């Protein structure tokens, strides 16, 4: 019985996959709290699709795919921030323009290749079982960097997320904080590509935080709950995918989606009898 439960862990590639799932799940859902509160749900999707151009360019130049993806993702993220400020368009419009543009560049470059051996399916849907030892090191280093910066800018980022205008008047460098958040998001998306893929990374950014939002009305609790939900779902989803013989990225995303609806329904029942929720 125990042997059966521990079966997935006997393979080294599965052990690496669990580490990757844990780190990616926690990281995405932590930064996802800001994504949800700032109503940037579209952005993870945007940066992920844009990074596809980086993967193709890296292939053409014989570079590491992740370096290419990271460069294009960061540039796209900064471009989104810049276009929003300069063109005075809303953020979702800026994202729409830049991500489709960058994704089209990726498709364009790839379509001109006579042959290619990029694992397209792997990038679109993720292939967490293929995470190498070097990938794990990269994921851990980048994740540590993102967490460290998030801790360092915790207060200015919180203030800028709630009330950017007043925060800026009080002397907080809001534009800088916004750009830093976009760069952290880009790095998070790139780290997550191998685990869940371009198409599904947005779910890990948005759904755990949206779930936590159903359960609390305090920021710190939302941040902690979101990270916890993301971590548990990523590991549990990977575990389930092993026994269901299903794609790991899709299983993880299905699990967080299920948890979101459970939280939504449970809130509905709780509010009815809640003494703290009377309208006065």
């Amino acid at each position, binding site marked *: 019985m125990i042997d059966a439960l521990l079966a997935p862990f006997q393979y080294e590639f599965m052990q690496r996959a669990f580490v990757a799932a844990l780190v990616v799940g926690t990281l995405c859902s932590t930064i996802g709290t800001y994504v949800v*509160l700032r109503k940037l749900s579209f952005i993870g999707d945007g940066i992920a699709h844009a990074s596809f151009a980086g993967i193709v360019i890296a292939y053409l130049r014989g570079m590491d795919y992740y370096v290419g993806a990271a460069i294009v993702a960061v540039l796209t993220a900064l471009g989104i921030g810049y276009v929003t400020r300069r063109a*005075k368009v809303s953020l979702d419009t800026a994202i729409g323009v830049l991500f489709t543009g960058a994704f089209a560049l990726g498709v364009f470059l790839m379509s001109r290749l006579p042959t290619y051996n990029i694992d397209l399916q792997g990038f679109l849907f993720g292939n967490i079982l293929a995470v190498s030892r070097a990938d794990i090191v990269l994921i851990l280093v980048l994740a540590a960097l993102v967490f460290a910066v998030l*801790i*360092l*800018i*915790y*207060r*200015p980022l*919180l*203030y800028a*997320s*709630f*009330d950017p*205008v*007043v*925060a*800026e*008047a*009080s*002397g*907080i460098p809001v534009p800088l904080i916004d750009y830093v958040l976009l760069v952290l998001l880009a790095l998070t998306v790139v780290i997550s590509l191998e685990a869940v893929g371009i198409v599904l990374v947005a779910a890990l950014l948005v759904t755990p935080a949206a779930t936590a*939002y159903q359960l*609390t*009305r*305090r*920021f710190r*609790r*939302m941040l902690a709950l979101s990270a916890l939900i993301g971590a548990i779902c990523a590991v549990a989803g990977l575990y389930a995918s092993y026994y269901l013989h299903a794609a790991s990225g899709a299983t993880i995303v299905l699990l967080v989606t299920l948890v979101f609806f459970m939280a939504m329904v449970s809130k509905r029942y709780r509010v009815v009898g809640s003494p703290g929720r009377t309208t*006065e």
Partner: protein
Amino acid sequence: MAIAVRARDLTVRYDGVLALDRVNLTLDEGQALGIVGPNGSGKSTLLKAVAGLIAPAGGSIHVFDGAPRSQPPGSIAYVPQVEAVDWSFPANVYDVVAMGRFPRMRALSPFSKHDREVVDAALEALHIGDLRNRHISQLSGGQQQRAFIARAIAQEPRLLLLDEPTTGVDAATEEALREFVRGLVAHGMPVLMTTHDLERATEWFDRLMVVDRRVLAEGAPATVLESGAYAGIREHAHTHGHLRTDAIQEHAEHD
């Protein structure tokens, strides 16, 4: 008293449209300056320029003899009109007021005893201590306004900018705010505030300015009110007076 704000021929454009035209303004410490004018007259724009949120197209703006953005963090407290934020944000009243401390805090430093004391004092000063654990979405308009002013005070600012703090609040809140702000002014705080409420202008302000892109009149409130410089504006104020009555009723039901 030292000069807190000095604007010289301040000109601001939004996408090429003239919002403020060569505005001159001086505000001393320990003085409250009221700004009245119709909607779209550039009142709020003037406050934003003083806060350093908008770069002037011409002229200059000085806060304590420097550019607004060159002031140490926490120097300028700006209280916008309350509609401006997302009230479903996961924060209670205490959380919001505590944000006032953020500009003055170093990264990683914990919330100190002094920080907590300042936040508590700000909550008490605005009479919202009993609402500290309430989620911000469950506040009435007057309570929201008081929470925002408490946050500004918790910042321990050197300059206070208030954008129509009396719009949409009931008479009791208006009076409480007025007494509170006059108390700050008496302790030397310079206050720049926009308003639609001309009736109380003499009680709120030491000086009053009528703005409609340009400065139309400026001086002691009673003198400015008698000068008739705001003749065209009075009609506006009246329509707003009616709107405000409705708002009071609405909020009275919430309270």
